[in-house]
C-alpha cells in the first residue's frame, strides 16, 4: 500500500528507486555453556575478537579521516579506548572463567550493566553517549559471532538509503556510486545524512517518523527533496506523476546549467553579481559548477566550529589560499569569525549559557574582546590575499566604533606584516554586514568608512520583526516581505549608493525566486546565495528588465501587508514563470 511521509527537505532533487533499508541492527547473542576444559580457548577467542574489532575501527577511522577530515574521525579514538577498557575486559573474562559463560553472553552482560547505569544520567548530551558504547558492542558481537556485516558493505546496486539515522561510521562505509538518495528518521539540516547528501548532490529528506518500520528492503521509494516528502510503494498514478516532475526538474536543471557561462544580466543590461555562499574549501567546486561569480559570503567560522582547538595562522592561511586559488580571478568575501548566537564551539568563548545569545556576545563583539583570535585571522586573510581576490567583511555591526576598532586592528596587522616582510594585497576592500536595524539607521555614516555593504537577511529580519525563527509559536512572524523589512533594504541600498559603495545581500531569502525580483528592483548590486539556487535565480534575472522590476517594487512599496505584497508578486510570477513557481509555497503563506 502506498504510504506518504512528510519530513524536512535537506537536499534538493527528486529520485525514484529501490530502498536499501538499514535497521538499527541487533545482533543475536548466543548463550552456551563453555566446557570447563576449554575456558582458555574461549578467552583466546574473546581476545581475538577484540583484536579484529580494533583493526576494523582503525580502518574506519582512517577512511573517514580521508573522506571527511581528521576531526570527524576523532570520535573513534574513544571507540578504541572502550575496546581497551581493562575493567570491562577483566569482568568479561571473569564471567567466562567463573560462570562458564560464552564470550558473547559474558560481554553482553558486562556492557549491559554499563548501559543500565546511563539511565540515571540526567544530562541529555551525556546520556546520548551510550550510543557510542552500543556501536562498539555491536561491532564486537558481530565479529565474535561471525555474523555478516549488513550495514552498507552489501550496497552494490543503485539504491535509496533508508535508515533511522546515519552515523559517522556509516558514511565512511557507503560507496557513493550506489547512493541515489537518502531518507532518515532522525536528523536536521546539519545531520550526517544531510551533509552527506548535499556533498554528493543527491536528494535527501530527514525527520521522517516511522520510516524504517514501514519500509522493506527493495521497496520502491520516491524521495522528493524539494517538498520534503517520501512516498513508499507508490501506486502507478503517483509514479507517473513523480516521473513527470522528475523529468521536468532534470530538464529545467539542464536548461539552467546551459546558462552557466552567461552573466546574470537583465534584458535591459543591469548586471547583478550572482555569487555563492560557502563554508569550507570543499564547497568551491559546487559553486564553480553552478556558475557562481565568486563567493559573496565565506562563513569562516565553520573552520573553527568543526574542530576542537583554534586553527593556527598557518592552517588558516592554507585553507583561505585554497579557496582563493580555486575561485581566481573571481572575488571571495571572507566574513570574519561569526560565533555566538546559535554557533558555538566549546573552546571559543560564547557558550550556550547566555540568556539571550542573539543579543549577546557574538560576531564583532566577540572578536573585539578576543584580539588574539581576531588578529590571527586578519593576518591569515592578508597573507592569503596574494592567492586571489580577497575582501573582508565584519559581522553584527551596530555602530561606527566597532568598524573603527576593527580597522585599527587591521592597520596594526598590516604594519606587523610589513615589518616581518610578508607580501599582501594592499587594496583589500573591507565591508560590513548590515544585519541590525541600528546599522540601517546609520547606514549613511557607516558607508563613509567602509567599501561595501552586504545585507544579512536572516538576522536583519529576526531583529527587525523581533522574532525567533526557531520558536514554532511565533515563527509565522518571520516574514521577508514585511513592508518594514523592504523599507530597511531600500534605505540601505540608497545610503550605500549615495556614498558610492556597492550593496549586496547574503542570506536565504535572496535565493527565493520571487524575492530575487524584488531585490533586483530595490537596486542591489550583488546577491550571494546557495550554489544550488544560482541557475534558477540567474534565469529569472535574465528574463526581466530592470525597469519592470523597479516598477514592481514601487507598486509593492505602496502596499501595507506582507500578504498583499506576496499575492501581488506570486500572481505576476505565475504568469511569467509558470514552471518555476508551480509547486512552490502557496501564495500568502509565510516562506
Amino acid at each position, binding site marked *: 500500500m502506498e504510504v506518504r511521509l512528510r519530513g524536512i527537505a535537506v537536499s534538493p532533487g527528486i529520485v525514484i528507486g529501490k530502498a536499501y533499508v538499514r535497521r538499527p541492527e541487533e545482533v543475536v547473542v548466543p548463550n552456551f555453556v563453555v566446557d570447563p576444559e576449554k575456558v582458555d580457548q574461549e578467552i583466546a577467542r574473546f581476545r581475538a575478537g577484540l583484536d579484529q574489532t580494533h583493526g576494523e575501527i582503525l580502518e574506519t577511522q582512517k577512511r573517514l579521516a580521508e573522506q571527511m577530515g581528521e576531526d570527524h574521525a576523532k570520535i573513534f579514538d*574513544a571507540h578504541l579506548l572502550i575496546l581497551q577498557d*581493562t575493567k570491562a575486559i577483566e569482568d568479561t573474562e571473569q564471567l567466562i572463567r567463573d560462570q562458564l559463560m560464552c564470550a558473547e553472553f559474558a560481554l553482553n552482560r558486562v556492557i549491559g550493566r*554499563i548501559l543500565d547505569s546511563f539511565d540515571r544520567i540526567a544530562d541529555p*548530551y*551525556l*546520556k546520548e553517549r551510550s550510543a557510542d558504547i552500543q556501536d562498539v558492542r555491536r561491532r564486537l558481537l558481530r565479529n565474535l559471532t561471525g555474523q555478516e556485516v549488513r550495514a552498507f558493505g552489501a550496497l552494490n546496486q543503485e539504491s535509496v538509503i533508508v535508515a533511522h539515522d546515519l552515523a559517522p561510521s556509516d558514511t565512511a562505509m557507503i560507496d557513493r556510486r550506489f547512493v541515489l538518495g537518502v531518507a532518515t528518521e532522525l536528523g536536521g539540516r546539519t545531520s550526517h545524512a544531510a551533509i552527506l547528501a548535499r556533498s554528493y548532490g543527491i536528494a535527501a529528506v530527514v525527520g521522517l517518523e516511522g520510516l524504517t518500520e514501514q519500509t522493506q528492503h527493495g521497496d520502491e521509494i520516491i524521495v522528493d527533496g524539494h517538498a520534503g516528502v517520501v512516498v513508499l510503494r507508490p501506486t502507478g498514478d503517483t509514479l507517473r506523476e513523480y516521473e513527470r516532475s522528475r523529468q521536468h526538474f532534470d530538464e529545467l536543471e539542464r536548461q539552467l546549467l546551459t546558462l552557466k557561462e552567461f552573466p546574470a544580466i537583465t534584458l535591459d543590461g543591469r548586471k547583478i553579481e550572482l555569487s555563492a555562499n560557502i563554508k569550507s574549501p570543499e564547497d568551491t567546486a559546487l559553486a564553480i559548477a553552478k556558475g557562481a561569480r565568486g563567493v559573496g559570503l565565506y562563513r569562516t567560522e565553520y573552520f573553527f566550529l568543526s574542530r*576542537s582547538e583554534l586553527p593556527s595562522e598557518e592552517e588558516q592561511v592554507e585553507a583561505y589560499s585554497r579557496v582563493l586559488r580555486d575561485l581566481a580571478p573571481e572575488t571571495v568575501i571572507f566574513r570574519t569569525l561569526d560565533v555566538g548566537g546559535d554557533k558555538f564551539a*566549546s573552546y571559543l568563548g560564547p557558550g550556550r549559557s547566555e540568556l539571550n545569545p542573539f543579543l549577546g556576545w557574538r560576531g564583532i563583539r566577540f572578536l573585539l574582546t578576543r584580539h588574539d583570535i581576531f588578529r590571527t585571522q586578519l593576518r591569515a586573510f592578508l597573507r592569503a590575499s596574494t592567492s586571489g581576490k580577497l575582501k573582508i567583511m565584519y559581522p553584527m555591526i551596530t555602530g561606527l566604533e566597532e568598524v573603527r576598532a576593527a580597522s585599527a586592528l587591521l592597520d596594526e596587522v598590516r604594519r606587523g606584516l610589513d615589518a616581518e616582510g610578508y607580501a599582501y594585497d594592499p587594496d583589500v576592500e573591507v565591508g560590513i554586514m548590515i544585519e541590525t536595524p541600528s546599522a540601517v539607521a546609520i547606514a549613511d555614516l557607516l558607508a563613509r568608512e567602509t567599501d561595501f555593504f552586504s545585507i544579512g537577511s536572516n538576522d536583519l529580519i529576526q531583529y527587525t520583526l523581533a522574532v525567533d525563527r526557531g520558536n514554532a509559536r511565533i515563527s509565522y512572524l518571520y516574514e521577508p516581505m514585511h513592508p518594514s523589512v523592504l523599507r530597511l533594504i531600500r534605505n540601505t541600498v540608497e545610503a550605500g549608493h549615495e556614498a558610492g559603495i556597492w550593496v549586496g545581500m547574503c542570506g536565504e531569502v535572496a535565493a527565493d525566486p520571487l524575492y530575487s525580483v524584488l531585490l533586483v528592483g530595490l537596486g542591489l548590486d550583488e546577491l550571494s546565495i546557495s550554489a544550488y539556487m544560482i541557475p534558477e535565480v540567474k534565469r529569472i534575472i535574465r528574463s526581466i528588465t530592470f525597469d519592470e522590476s523597479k516598477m514592481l517594487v514601487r507598486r509593492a512599496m505602496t502596499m501595507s501587508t506582507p500578504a498583499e505584497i506576496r499575492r501581488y508578486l506570486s500572481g505576476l510570477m505565475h504568469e511569467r514563470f509558470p514552471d518555476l513557481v508551480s509547486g512552490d509555497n502557496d501564495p500568502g503563506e509565510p516562506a
Partner: protein
Amino acid sequence: MTRREVVVQNELGLHLRSASTFVRTASRFRSQIRVATALVPPVDGKSILGLVTLGAATGERLVITADGPDEAEAVEALAGLVNAHFGE
C-alpha cells in the same frame, strides 16, 4: 592516598572525548586511580566506560583519589586536566 576535589568546567561535561583524554593521562601513572561524584560511588579512573557512567555535567564536583607510588603527581596532573577543560 591523595585526594582532590575539582569542578567540571568544560561545556559538555565528562563526555566520551574528555573521558578519553582523562583515561590516557591516568594510564601514565602506576597508582590506582578512582573518580567519584556526589551521587555516584568511585569508578576506575583508567576505565573510559566507568568514567562516562558518572554522567558528570558541567558544574559538577569530581573527587579524584590516587593510591600508589606516584599518587601525588597523578592527582596533580588529573586535577590540572579537569581545570584546563580537558584541553578542549
